[in-house]
């Protein structure tokens, strides 16, 4: 059968020694983790390996010998290496040797079991140990019985086993050939141990900072949850304002990021990192906006522009109502109803404008203080903007509600009287239409009312249509703002940055490259990490948002609009 040997590319230039790693018999593959150099005492090697095995829970054994002939061929070394196979018994025993100046290696296996040693076909696969150790396969392999290290089910992925083996053996990579110990190893750390002072200092400082922030945040959230703010008018207002939801959501995020517990697994760590980067980005953008707003008295300019805009909107609405009260689009309205509705709405607009003018001296101050909240983040500013739009267009909302209620009542009345016209009745108990015999005077009044409502329908329908369209426009603008807020909230910026800069850490799989071959030698392959595509990164690591998207389909929404929300 074909024997696959995974060899770390960092050990290609190591001195001769013993190969240690993991042997997976079901897949006939040997994963080499490090090279133990001479001189060593076999007993100490065995002891070290059992210690490593206890920590990593992966069976690490001596797999064979590695011979790097830097000078001419040494016969005595060959005999010595053969003798080693008797001390460390392993089936099959690998012997890999490299000549000076030659790219192609010799690979042999010694098998003690069969009488005639069968020459197995060997595939030599080089892999980058550091990248394989740091990377994570997607989708993550969930082992069936949740025991660590038990990924040797017959149909399990071979590559997941390779990644898992290298990742779990971090303790093996702590000692090096330059350390003063009985065992001298060569692995990826031998190329130079990397560390960063800033990272170490940040790690040391993070614990007290986290504790302090956790205390502060629990105080703030305790305040927010206090009973004073739960009385009926206030709680209703809080639930309607999107700013409060957004601030609460961000507070929740802050508590999650600065909690004292360490992230248990990779998913939680990525989630924490994504939330942290999203918060940082949010605050940075908010502070940029703040510095732009407060320069050159832009707040004052904004406040000055606000009143004329509100006036302009009110004037446009008045023109619209005058148009509706006349002959809109050539349709003939019922004069009396038209005048009543038109005057009613005009009076509303007049009230609204008076209130706005009453508030006008305070607007600049309110805007100035509200603008300060931009330091909490761009999402908070956008939520406030959405709330301000909602407040300024409150009269449109009122008109929509009046029009919708009127229209809904009319449709309800019409359908009920239509049933009477045909001699039927709605049975509330049975939730169906039943036939019913009415008296003559009931029929007479019913028919009269039916005709009245029917002929008044176009007027009401037109008012309803116009105000629904205006309301939809406002909802559309608010929806766009909420979409932007959602984008900043849920996009995993850390994962995208990781995919951009350290693409080997998020792996969708592997790819193989065939290296130069020579006839008679084992097949040489280079295994590289195939990074995840950007769309899968966003899909896997997207943060859940609080906004509930409408559960109705477009069809049911149109139906609701047609019947006035009934």
């Amino acid at each position, binding site marked *: *059968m*074909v024997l*696959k040997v995974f060899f770390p590319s960092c050990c290609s230039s190591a001195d001769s020694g013993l190969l240690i790693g993991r042997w997976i018999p079901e897949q*006939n593959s040997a994963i080499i983790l490090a090279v133990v150099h001479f001189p060593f005492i076999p007993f100490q090697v065995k002891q070290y390996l059992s210690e490593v095995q206890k920590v990593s829970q992966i069976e690490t054994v001596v797999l064979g010998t590695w011979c790097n002939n830097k000078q001419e061929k040494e016969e005595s070394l060959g005999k010595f290496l053969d003798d080693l196979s008797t001390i460390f018994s392993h089936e099959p025993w690998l012997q890999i040797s490299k000549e000076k100046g030659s790219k192609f290696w010799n690979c042999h296996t010694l098998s003690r079991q069969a009488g005639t040693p069968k020459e197995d*076909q060997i*595939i030599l696969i080089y892999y980058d140990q550091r990248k394989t150790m740091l990377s994570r396969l997607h989708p993550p392999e969930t082992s069936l019985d949740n025991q660590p290290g038990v990924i040797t089910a017959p*149909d399990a*992925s*071979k*590559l997941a086993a390779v990644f898992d083996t290298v990742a779990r053996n971090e303790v093996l990579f702590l000692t090096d050939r330059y350390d003063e110990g009985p065992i001298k190893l060569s692995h990826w750390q031998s190329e130079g141990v990397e560390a960063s002072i800033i990272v170490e200092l940040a790690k040391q400082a993070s614990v007290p900072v986290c504790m302090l922030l956790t205390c502060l945040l629990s105080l703030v959230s305790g305040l927010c949850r206090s009973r004073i703010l739960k009385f009926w008018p206030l709680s209703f207002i809080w639930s309607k304002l999107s700013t409060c939801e957004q601030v609460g959501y961000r507070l929740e995020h802050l508590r999650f990021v600065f909690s004292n517990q360490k992230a248990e697994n990779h998913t939680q760590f990525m989630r924490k990192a994504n939330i942290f980067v999203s918060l940082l980005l949010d605050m940075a953008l908010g502070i940029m906006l703040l510095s732009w707003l407060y320069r050159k008295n832009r707040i004052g300019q904004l406040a000055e522009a606000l009143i004329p805009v509100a006036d302009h909107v009110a004037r446009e609405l008045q023109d619209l109502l005058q148009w509706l009260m006349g002959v809109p689009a050539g349709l003939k309205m019922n004069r009396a109803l038209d005048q009543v509705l038109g005057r009613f709405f005009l009076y509303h607009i007049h009230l609204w404008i008076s209130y706005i003018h009453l508030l006008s001296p305070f607007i600049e101050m309110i805007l100035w203080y509200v603008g300060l909240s931009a330091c909490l983040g761009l999402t908070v500013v956008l939520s406030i903007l959405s709330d301000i739009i909602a407040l300024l267009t409150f009269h449109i909302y009122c008109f929509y509600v009046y029009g919708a209620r009127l229209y809904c009542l009319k449709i309800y009345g019409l359908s009920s009287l239509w049933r009477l016209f045909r001699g039927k009745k709605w049975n509330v108990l049975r939730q169906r239409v039943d036939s019913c015999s009415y008296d003559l005077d009931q029929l007479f009044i019913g028919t009269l009312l039916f005709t009245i409502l029917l002929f008044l329908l176009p007027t009401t329908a037109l008012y309803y249509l116009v105000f629904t369209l205006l309301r939809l426009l406002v909802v559309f603008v608010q929806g766009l703002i909420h979409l932007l807020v959602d984008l900043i909230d849920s996009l995993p910026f850390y994962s995208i940055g990781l995919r951009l800069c350290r693409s080997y850490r998020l792996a969708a*799989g*592997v*790819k*193989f490259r*065939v290296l130069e*071959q020579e006839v008679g030698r084992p*097949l040489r*392959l280079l295994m590289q990490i*195939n990074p995840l595509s950007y769309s899968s990164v966003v899909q896997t690591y997207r943060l859940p948002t609080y906004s509930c998207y409408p559960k109705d389909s477009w069809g049911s929404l149109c139906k609701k609009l047609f019947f006035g929300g009934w």
Partner: protein
Amino acid sequence: MEEPRNFSDIDGGHLALQRRCYSPSCREFCLSCPRLSLRSLTAATCSVWLAAYGLFALCQNSMVLSAAIFITLLGLLGYLHFVKIDQETLLIIGSLGIQMTSSYASGKESTTFIEMGKVKDVVINEAIYMQKVIYYLCILLKDPVEPQGVSQVVPVFQSAKPRLDCLIEVYRSCQEILAHQEVTSASS
């Protein structure tokens, strides 16, 4: 290393198949697609610029012309990087897996590797596409739940679209390796 052999794709374009045999259990098939023709490139550019010039004659705004140049450049770069595939490779390594690579005209390579444990078989399938009946080579993947079922069908050489004669060559070589691997795994 064999020399490239000439085949044609379903539209009549010219394809070159190169087979490499690295070892008894490792083979590679490289299909080169027809290159981007200068004629179609010139036609597209001229049409976009004529339209832009017409718009400029209407509205006398020179931004339209610069916008047209930008659009042409960006469109060409996007086409070369995301759409135009130069070469498709199928690498089959017995007892490891099957790897499919597409190299785009801008040099980008997109690779997919399927482990041998998931591969059920490699077959040639027929499909009815509009008024044509075309053949395509595909890899059948095992269903983890049902041992006799097929969970997914992965087509190979999707943008090169070679004809049946080319597919038969590739199919025969793949079957040799799969059969050889079954024999060795049965004997162990």
